[in-house]
């Protein structure tokens, strides 16, 4: 049974790796160059959207998973939900970091600045800060039960404040391109396939990494349990 489970994860890893390679090919080579840009640098930089938006989506999705895990933990008090919530934060922060960095790389040729206090950028940064604080809170608590409870509370309160921050977008003048609105998509039709493929590929990557983290979390618990058992039997 144990071997079978390991194998399933290995298969998933291989699928994710292949999917990411295909996504890279589609985004960097197959996707057409954008028509409505001025400079060479902007033409190349445009391809970053295939990664930037996928990462942003995965980041926010990961924090949603953390929120759900936190609520379930507070409700049920089962350890597995705490492991899920904390694992998802680690992956989410990594993806969010990548979002901010890729956005910055794109902004230089497109807006001629690495950074601007555009609301969407600000929201992403504040969200990133909330979950970095979440990790700091966890690392500052020793008692596992209390750590799980406090982290769950912070996971809930933090997530609730994100949409309120996000709302401010509408009222601030924004220079961030709105890729999707009600009428059109902002992407030419032959860009859509690489875009959505990349979105799916990175979502898959998220789940693969999340599964690994959750597994490590359960194994760490097992190790603690065995250690305690060994100490008890030695006495």
């Amino acid at each position, binding site marked *: 049974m144990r071997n079978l489970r390991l194998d399933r994860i290995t298969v998933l890893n291989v699928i994710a790796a292949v999917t990411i390679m295909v996504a890279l090919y589609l985004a960097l080579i197959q996707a057409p160059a954008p028509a409505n840009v001025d400079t060479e640098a902007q033409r190349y930089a445009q391809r970053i959207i295939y990664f930037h938006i996928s990462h942003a989506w995965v980041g926010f999705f990961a924090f949603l998973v953390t929120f759900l895990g936190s609520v379930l933990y*507070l409700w049920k008090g089962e350890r597995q939900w705490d492991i899920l919530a904390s694992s998802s934060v680690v992956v989410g922060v990594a993806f969010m970091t990548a979002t901010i960095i890729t956005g910055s790389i794109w902004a230089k040729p497109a807006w001629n600045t690495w950074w601007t206090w555009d609301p969407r950028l600000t929201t992403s940064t*504040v*969200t990133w*800060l*909330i979950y970095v*604080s979440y990790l*700091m*809170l966890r690392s*500052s*608590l*020793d008692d596992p039960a*209390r750590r799980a*409870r*406090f982290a*769950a*509370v*912070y996971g*809930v*309160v*933090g997530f*609730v*404040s994100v949409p*309120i*921050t996000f*709302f*401010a977008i509408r*009222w601030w003048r924004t220079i961030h391109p709105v890729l999707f609105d009600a009428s059109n998509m902002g992407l030419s039709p032959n860009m859509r396939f690489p875009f959505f493929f990349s979105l799916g590929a990175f979502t898959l990557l998220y789940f693969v990494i999340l599964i690994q983290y959750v597994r490590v979390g359960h194994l760490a618990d097992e190790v603690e349990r065995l250690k305690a058992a060994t100490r008890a039997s030695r006495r």
Partner: protein
Amino acid sequence: MSFLHQIAAIIRKDVIAELRTKEMFSSMFVFALLAVVIFNFAFELRIADAATIAPGVLWVSVTFAGMLGLNRSFVLEKDRGCLDGLLLAPVDRSAIYFGKMLGNFMFITLVEAIILPIFSALFNVNLIQAWILIVLLLGTLGFSGVGTLFSAMAVHTRAREVLLPVLLFPVVMPALIAAVKLTAGLLDGQALAEMANWMQLLVAFDVILIAVSYMTFDYVVED
């Protein structure tokens, strides 16, 4: 004892404790004053009109000073073993939350009441306007609402006081943004109707975040 009486009893306890030592209020007040003075020096040479930075400076000073008060709020309870006594008392857990929260709100508001005239004089702006005061109260309410919850968490961590600002600032960011926007708009003489959305955001933040803090407070103090 009704729920409101329970809340009032906890506020009274905090006020009496504060009146005996006066350490929280005095440190908050002096800190706020220091922040205002330091900002004055830091910006004076480069900013033509001090009024343009007044809203930001005001909110930074108030929230940083408030942070000191919020930290003391539960550190005192924990260090002197009062927290266990509070939890053993036959009062509702949510009464503890609202009592501590309103106590913190009162202390910060009091600091604001004293700092505001001084601030107005130093920056040569008139902040004593009805709507600015309302914005100040709403902002402080949201800040102390979430701050009380996080303060109860931070005292149990290894980093203690250090962690509270790290936890609190990113979460209260939307309220701070709205409060600064509103204060600036009101100082510029904009009509409130033009900024109704910011006011709604601020009120929504207060209502939602205080409700969530109230619902989760039980999990923070349970042992």
